[in-house]
């Protein structure tokens, strides 16, 4: 029997009379591309089909049933007969109304080779398929039917800015590798090589000792000391001073050296004239 043609205004409180709907001859069939049946089972509103239904790329899933009033067995065309595909891991959902005739006969077909737009993208978990039937004046039905495993699909499209609303991957800079130095033993060896002339000099000096008779005379020692001071200024410049500072100290030291030098060299020349 067709659902009552009298329009029911939903804004009025609906009647308490709760009639019950039920499904007559509910079954689903999985056929492959050649038409042979892979799986044909009835499904029930009371308990869920245990094994998941697996669909390959060329298979077809057909679901058929008839919605009838439980008491008088007459067919009913409900307002809402939806099949819902839900992926709990990603929260994606797809809902499709099932075409139901006036007598309550319903038929639904799914072919993954022509995927409809409402199918959610697949993930690692199977899709949970449920049936939702609702209509005024009857108890609503929502029931889990079975799990569905589809061939893998592209992921859901995301907005290009979506990534900036989550933690982004860390970036590290690859630095140039540290300068490689030759081993210290090699440096020590060659530094030792540069001391070879000293060996020669000390050897020769052991034969011919220079006599430093005027070393501590007051006219010569200051000049020697200022020469030593100049060399130590140079060493300090190498270690820690800057150009401006060394020029300043150098200027002062140079002035001192002029006087001590004149004194020393004149005393030596006078010594030599004798």
């Amino acid at each position: 029997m067709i659902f009552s043609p009298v329009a029911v205004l939903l804004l009025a409180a609906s009647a308490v009379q709760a009639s019950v709907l039920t499904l007559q001859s509910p079954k689903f069939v999985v056929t492959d591309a050649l038409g042979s049946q892979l799986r044909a089972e009835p499904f029930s509103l009371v308990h869920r089909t245990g094994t998941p239904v697996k669909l390959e790329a060329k298979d077809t899933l057909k679901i058929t049933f008839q919605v009838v009033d439980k008491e008088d067995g007459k067919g009913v065309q409900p307002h809402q007969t939806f099949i819902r595909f839900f992926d709990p891991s990603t929260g994606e959902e797809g809902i499709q109304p099932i075409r139901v005739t006036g007598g309550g006969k319903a038929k639904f077909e799914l072919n993954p080779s022509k995927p409809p737009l409402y199918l959610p993208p697949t993930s690692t978990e199977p899709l949970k398929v449920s049936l939702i039937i609702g209509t005024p004046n009857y108890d609503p039905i929502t029931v889990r039917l079975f799990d569905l495993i589809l061939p893998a699909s592209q992921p859901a499209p995301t907005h290009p800015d979506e990534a900036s609303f989550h933690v982004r991957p860390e970036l590290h800079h690859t630095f140039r590798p540290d300068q490689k130095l030759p081993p210290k033993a090699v440096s020590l060896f060659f530094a030792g090589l540069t001391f070879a002339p000293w060996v020669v000099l000390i050897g020769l000096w052991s034969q011919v000792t220079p006599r430093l008779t005027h070393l501590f005379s007051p006219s010569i020692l200051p000049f020697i000391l200022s020469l030593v001071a100049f060399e130590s200024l140079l060493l300090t410049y190498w270690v820690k001073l800057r150009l401006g500072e060394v020029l300043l100290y150098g200027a002062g030291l140079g002035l001192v050296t002029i006087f001590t030098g004149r004194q020393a060299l004149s005393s030596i020349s006078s010594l030599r004239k004798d």
Partner: protein
Amino acid sequence: MFGFRRWCLLALSAASLLCVDAKSSTGDSVLVVVDPNNQDKYSLFFDGLKDSGYKLTFRSPKAEKPVVIADDVPNFDHVILLAPEARNLGKDITPQSIVQLLSLKTNVIVTLPTKQSPLHSLAAEFGLILPPPGSPLISYFPQRDTPSSLIPIPVEDHSSPALTKHIEPVWFSGIPQALSTNPLLIPILRAPAESFASETLVTSGSADALVESAEKGGEGLWAGSSLSAVTGFQATNGARIAFVGGAEVFSDELAQKEVAPYVKSGNADFSREVAAWTFQENLVLRIDGVEHHLAHENTTVAKEQYTNNDNVVFSAYVSKWDAKQGRWEPYSGLKDLQLEFTMLDPFIRTALPPVRATPGKYSTTFRAPDRHGVFKFIIDYKRKGWTSLQSSTTIPVVPPRHDGYPRFLSAAWPYYAGAISTSVAFLLFSTAWLAGEARDRSSRKAKGSKAE
């Protein structure tokens, strides 16, 4: 008697001034556009706002004043449009002016009408796809006495960042919105899985109409939990707008209706939470300051420029608006703040963890790249529902100076040995020459005397 009532009212208003519940961070003045005949229907909602310290100004949809924007300056901090049945809301409230309000940092709550209205085109601008006019959200689940267009929607904890506390199921009546993928959209209340949008008049052709609208492809069918009943949108400048599918969510009648025996609905709490999020009470952050300095020094004085391969310490101070106390408090709860060190492209992106000792301080140490150039410390933190944090500090990174390179390398030891040997040898030679005896003095004397 009259005097006593007056005295009671005075005492109550004084008390309400003292016990301000939650304050907004951007201001207290609210314009409510509502039909004066319906104003009493929402008295609980308005009283809740007034108790929290908001100053409400009511305006009828037909009235022209008070104007929302005058001379490009907004007159109010927040606006509630609660008149969905009005054909137009006044000359100064149009979709363009509402967008301008948002760009002027005024927050708006918009209730959408079921019939066609300019607000539908406003919602479309924000990425909301609305069902055809005259098809509100209906659901036959759960089985109940109320009409199918009045739906109790259970609210899961943490289902939306905008809802900060537990809320009982909410009675909803209105239109659903399908959401685009725009990440600035924040669904506040999702429609239940068994609900769908349809005309309220169910005839024999309704079921076929549903099937045909779905087969039209694309957005033909509004159904399921991907729909949203109340949606928020946070603009890039921080202003927030909430689209509510129907004005009855705020009404007193639904606030006092029971969802289960002896359990009142969560409508009052939900309306307050929607207002709290939209009016910048909850989930509002700001950066108080940033600083940077070299790692190995004890000072925290910022340098004007850094050198390649320096170890730099960067710190940011973040506060959150505490609505109950009405002030900004340092907030260390951001677990995934990131810092980018950028010159045209990010060179370095690291996490900025909170520092235990100082509340609100986030700090990290990293090594400046060995490319020189003008870099920026960038914080760009965007999360759904939260204010976005943006900060950019420019800093040059220069190559090392002539004396900034490593010195006294072991490879140079032979050269040091040679140069120092030369200096020492010079000193020894000059000492020997200066201090030594002139050898041929006696022979020269002899030669000189012989020559004479």
